[in-house]
């Protein structure tokens, strides 16, 4: 890489394309909303499109970060949406039973109950995947199907509303002029990055994703690592569930976190983490989640009917996947690449990752 021009080094950075897409999407908004990048201070709170993108994107970022580690081990977790619903349902139903809903002790206990439930879901997924050796997509399908039923059972099929000031803070409150959820997300992302990149854990996760059997043979407890990532993923989903139910002050067993697993997987893929496992980029995932949230916001602001949101998302999924497919690039850009650099497609895919993985950082 030392001999290549800086521009080439930049375009080959693993975050280049996700960030480029994000910047383009943000810029698209400017002609429609001239003050898109303006951030106003009202009542001691910062307001603006950028703040709200991060605010509304918070649960997705959390879920996607957890999903990134699961995908890095070569797995997938379809149950996160159901975990979001279960956590929200448990927490809200506990708070709503309290005489004083704003009492701190009650709220903390409720948070604990919700998060423990999320961890139990994660343990179950991890047990099925790591211990029983069931395909992740199927193992997590169980909670995906049953979990929403459980959430509705907890809320008795109703939408439970709560009226609790401390609980409201998590998803809808402000701290130091910024939405409080941004701090939660920043903390989770920072902790994840530190643990996976400053310790060997990230390397172990990638090793398990690359080849679980080989990892086990060299002495990595791949089973334990797998269970751990599923628990972590469920915990992230649980926190997202708290955030979503707190933001609306309500728990909806049927609709909370609906399709968030698909958005999260999409965010991970946009962020450049391969669905085959073996390597990951937390920074990429955060950017990917922001891309999805920006896309949603953009669709709102440029006045396209909101129902076309899903069609746009479908287009994005396909374009991103096609661009990541070596075979597609070979077919479409094959002639061009073939002339300049011989075996272009495959190395271009692996080189930035191999270079990036030891010293990875957040965007």
């Amino acid at each position, binding site marked *: 890489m030392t001999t290549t021009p800086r521009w080439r080094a930049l375009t080959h950075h693993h975050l280049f394309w996700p960030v480029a897409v994000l910047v383009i999407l943000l810029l698209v908004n400017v002609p429609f909303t001239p003050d898109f990048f303006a951030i106003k201070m009202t009542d001691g709170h910062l307001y603006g499109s950028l703040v709200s993108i991060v605010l509304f994107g918070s649960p997705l970022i959390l879920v996607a970060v957890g999903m990134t580690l699961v995908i890095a081990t070569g797995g*997938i977790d379809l149950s996160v949406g159901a975990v979001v619903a279960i956590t929200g349902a448990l927490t809200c139903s506990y708070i709503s039973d309290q005489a004083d809903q704003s009492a701190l002790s009650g709220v903390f206990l409720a948070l604990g109950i919700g998060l423990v439930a999320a961890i139990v879901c994660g343990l179950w997924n991890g047990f*099925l995947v790591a211990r*029983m*050796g*069931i*395909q992740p*997509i*199927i*193992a997590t*399908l*169980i*909670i*995906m*199907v*049953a*979990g*929403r*039923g*459980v959430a*509705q*059972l907890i809320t*008795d*099929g109703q939408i439970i509303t709560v009226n609790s000031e401390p609980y409201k803070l998590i998803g809808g409150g402000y701290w130091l002029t910024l939405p409080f959820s941004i701090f939660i997300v920043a903390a989770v992302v920072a902790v994840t990055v530190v643990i996976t990149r400053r310790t060997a854990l990230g390397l172990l996760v990638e090793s398990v994703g690359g080849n679980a059997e080989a990892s086990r043979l060299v002495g990595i407890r791949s089973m334990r690592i797998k269970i751990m990532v599923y628990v972590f993923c469920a915990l992230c989903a649980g926190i997202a569930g708290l955030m979503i139910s707190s933001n609306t002050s309500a728990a909806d*067993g049927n609709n909370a976190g609906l399709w968030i697993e*698909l958005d999260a*997987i*999409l965010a991970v*893929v946009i962020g450049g983490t391969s*669905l085959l496992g073996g390597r990951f980029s937390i920074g990429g995932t955060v950017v990917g989640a922001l891309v999805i949230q920006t896309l949603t916001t953009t669709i709102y602001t440029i006045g396209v*009917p909101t*129902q*076309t*949101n*899903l*069609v*746009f*998302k*479908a*287009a994005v*999924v*396909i374009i991103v*996947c*096609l661009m*990541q*497919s*070596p*075979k*597609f690039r070979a*077919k479409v850009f094959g002639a061009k690449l073939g002339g300049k650099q011989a075996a272009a497609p495959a190395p271009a895919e692996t080189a930035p990752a191999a270079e990036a993985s030891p010293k990875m950082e957040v965007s």
Partner: protein
Amino acid sequence: MSTTTQRPTAADSRTTSKAARVLGDRRLPVLVTAGLFLVMYAVGLSRYQNYGFAEAQVFLNLFIDNSYLLVAAVGATFVILSGGIDLSVGSVIGFTTMFTAWLVERQGLPIVVVIPMALAVGAFGGFLMGYVIQNFEIQPFIVTLAGLFLFRGLCLVISKESISIGDSSVSSMAQTQVSLGGAFLSIGAIVALVVLAAAFYVLHYTRFGRRVYAIGGNEQSALLMGLPQGGTKIAVYTMSGFCSALAGLLFTLYIQSGDPLHATGMELDAIAAVVIGGTLLTGGSGYVIGTLFGVLVLGLIKSLIQFEGTLSSWWTKIATGVLLCAFILIQRAMTSRRKT
């Protein structure tokens, strides 16, 4: 290994114990599901005897009320047998209800013209997904996920509100009863049974069916044997798209409206039915008859809950999840036996 219609080889059965032989029998999951269905039905009979559970119509209603799920699950069986997965099923069903309702009600087209159009759109959607999966080597999971978004989005593009169908030919078609002695079947149920029979024939008596099993059993071997694996895969997804659209038409008949939220998550019901029916999710092993029993079991859960009266609908989801879990574990026990 990949010609799965056969039982384990003779050498296996000589060397292994009887228990292992039973566990290794590929028909076991289907038999377990069929047995489960009978047990559940017997429970229903003893429990709700006085409420008319024993009537033949209650049994036939399982086919009438789940005709669309059966058709969708048959399509999903092909995809799963080939080692793939199709997440777009529910969206295609929803889209078909919307498309049909819109063409019939808003554009005034006769239903006989709309039916082939809807089927063609579904099949073409499946073909496109299969084409991308095969030619660009993108995982089926992610491609059909895009399909899920796309078709659900297109539903909403047609209309945000539900469109009810008042067309007289549609309602007369929906209400036609095919008498079977004292009870009757709907046209939808007949269509579903025909689809099931056709799928049975194709899977077990045609070259195409064997290719599907071979690819699901071991794609590399299938490729080395010179099977036209690409065409088969694309055909499987095309069939799944076609079945989803047909299921959508049956659902339209059943519910006589188009709604952008119809059949949300039905791909999971279809996958669950296939799994409960004993088809291996890794592909290559299973029977379409198992899928029928899977659908019947899921349907029976719903009608038992209805007869119970006090239980709420979310118990359906929980029961489905528990059954799914049980059958996945049975499958797991079986496959680990076979490997050793």
